[in-house]
């Protein structure tokens, strides 16, 4: 069961057929029904029913004197690494235990301006480092489809909030696939916009050149509506693009006929799980039947994405996470003098995966290794971006690939860090190149959801949405079977 469509909720609230308070009550009731709490799915790092109801009450008042925003009365769950004023922002980390941000992220301001209700902070891998939402100070989140499975990560809590029907829209964040992979694992829609499309101001940085706020939707329409609200230039983010934001919902009305869809062969290796391949083939046939032109293409540097990603991202992270030093906010643990305080705080505050990546990142930037690792990785990153540029310049409009090499795996199944890193093998490329990408459900294997991924050229999210809308409509219930 999914939450009611954001479009319907918004129209009903605006027309007075229902109230924001009752949509909030429905979300609270659904949370209880699916056992979203700590001992159940563990969807949230923090919830505040009273705060959600208070927000809803102000919306009821606002109705009288303002034009209704595009998310009026729609509850939206927000990942715990996005700064909110009324609830803690802890990034799933002990080092930020109890930290309530003195300022608000631009995306949250925009959500509220659109009439949305910020409904809970969702659980995540600590500092977004992980692909399973098992690495959180609050414990693992479980996949609503099958609670013995992980929801994917790092935005697993947001994916679970949507997949369990608590909300129709949730914000996540992407650095290497942290929205698309959990969307695939949970059978919902997940969008990573073009780098620069959405403000990062207030998104706690993991790897600044890769991070982007993303949107989960129960449907393509929910995701398109959510992205439309948070996208657009923000003068507080120097990497924010000044481009106009198109109406993504309107992308549904564009015909997919004549669209050229590329299938990059590197994303369909011989080793690909045949069941996942079969689901992808079926989706491609749907698109072909709708009049899209299917073309085989190549992105030759794809297999280098994981090595590049796991140099660039930890390097930036090692620097971004230096501010967690026990001086101005968050955890402070005493030690011998200042040095001891630093080490006690950081060792006690960061979990093992974060510690590992900080050390890896520090190593690849350190004297004598910078050229071999960081500089080299940034050069290969250029080659990866060039692959995409070349394909899109050749007349291909969007690419289609599997989102992840596997379906949701059992909790605790992957203990080797590098094996976990390979979960991002089909998603990290989009972050490295900065292009937009999204995952849509394309059926199930052994009852577990499979995601198909669309990628487009920079700032061409609309075309990607058109393809996703068309595929969603064509597949109907098959997308969840």
């Amino acid at each position: 069961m999914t939450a009611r469509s954001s479009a319907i909720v918004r129209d009903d609230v605006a027309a007075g057929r229902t109230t924001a308070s009752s949509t909030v009550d429905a979300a609270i009731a659904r949370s209880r029904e699916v056992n979203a709490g700590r001992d159940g799915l563990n969807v949230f790092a923090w919830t505040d029913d009273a705060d959600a109801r208070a927000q809803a009450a102000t919306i009821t008042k606002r109705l009288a004197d303002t034009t209704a925003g595009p998310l009026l009365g729609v509850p939206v769950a927000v990942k715990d690494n996005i700064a909110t004023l009324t609830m803690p922002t802890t990034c799933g980390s002990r080092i930020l235990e109890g930290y309530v941000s003195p300022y608000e992220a631009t995306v949250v301001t925009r959500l509220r301006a659109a009439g949305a209700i910020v409904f809970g902070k969702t659980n995540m891998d600590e500092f977004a480092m992980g692909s399973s939402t098992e690495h959180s100070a609050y414990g693992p989140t479980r996949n609503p489809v099958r609670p013995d499975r992980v929801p994917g990560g790092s935005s697993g809590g947001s994916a679970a909030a949507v997949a369990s029907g608590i909300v129709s829209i949730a914000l996540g964040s992407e650095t290497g696939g942290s929205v698309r992979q959990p969307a695939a694992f949970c059978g919902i829609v997940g969008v990573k916009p073009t780098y620069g499309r959405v403000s990062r101001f207030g998104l706690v940085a993991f790897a600044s050149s890769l991070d982007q706020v993303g949107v989960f939707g129960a449907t393509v329409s929910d995701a398109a509506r959510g992205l439309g609200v948070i996208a657009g230039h923000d003068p507080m983010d120097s990497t924010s693009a000044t481009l106009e934001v198109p109406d993504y919902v309107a992308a549904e009305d564009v015909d997919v006929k004549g669209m050229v869809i590329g299938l990059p062969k590197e994303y369909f290796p011989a080793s690909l799980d045949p069941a996942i391949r079969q689901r992808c083939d079926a989706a491609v046939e749907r698109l072909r039947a709708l009049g899209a032109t299917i073309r085989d293409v190549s992105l030759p540097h794809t297999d280098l994405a994981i090595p590049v990603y796991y140099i660039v991202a930890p390097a930036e992270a090692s620097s971004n996470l230096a501010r967690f030093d026990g001086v101005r906010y968050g955890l402070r643990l005493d030690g011998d003098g200042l040095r001891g305080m630093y080490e006690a705080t950081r060792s006690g505050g960061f979990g093992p995966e974060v510690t590992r990546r900080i050390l890896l990142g520090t190593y690849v930037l350190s004297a004598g290794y910078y050229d071999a690792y960081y500089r080299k990785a940034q050069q290969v990153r250029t080659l990866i971006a060039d692959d995409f540029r070349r394909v899109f310049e050749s007349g291909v409009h969007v690419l289609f690939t599997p989102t992840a090499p596997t379906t949701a795996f059992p909790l605790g199944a992957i203990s080797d860090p590098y094996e976990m890193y390979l979960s991002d093998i089909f998603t990290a490329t989009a972050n490295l190149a900065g292009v937009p990408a999204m995952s849509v459900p394309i059926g199930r294997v052994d009852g577990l959801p499979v995601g198909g991924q669309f990628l487009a050229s920079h700032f061409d999210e609309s075309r990607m949405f058109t393809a996703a809308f068309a595929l969603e409509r064509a597949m109907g219930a098959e997308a969840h079977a």
Partner: protein
Amino acid sequence: MAVTINDVRHIATLARLGLTDARAAAIVDELNIILGHMDALSRVDTAGVQEAIGVGAQGLPVRADSGPPFPLHRSIDSVAPSVREGFLLVPRLSTHESSEEA
């Protein structure tokens, strides 16, 4: 270039992370395994290839030299671990103690 225990001690110092001996030894192995996979990069010819810096950006935007300051909804006192008379407090440093001792 295999990572040694001394390397791990050095980077842990740079990153201000305290590691037990057992954890440090485990990190040596983990980093070597991870970096072993990174060796694929060394086989790529990147002669003349630009580094990816500021991908997609059209130069650096600037802001006018004027206020008002971006507001804090709560003062830093509300989140800081130790504050006195408006100052943030940390364990004592000697006057010229530099970053390396800190």
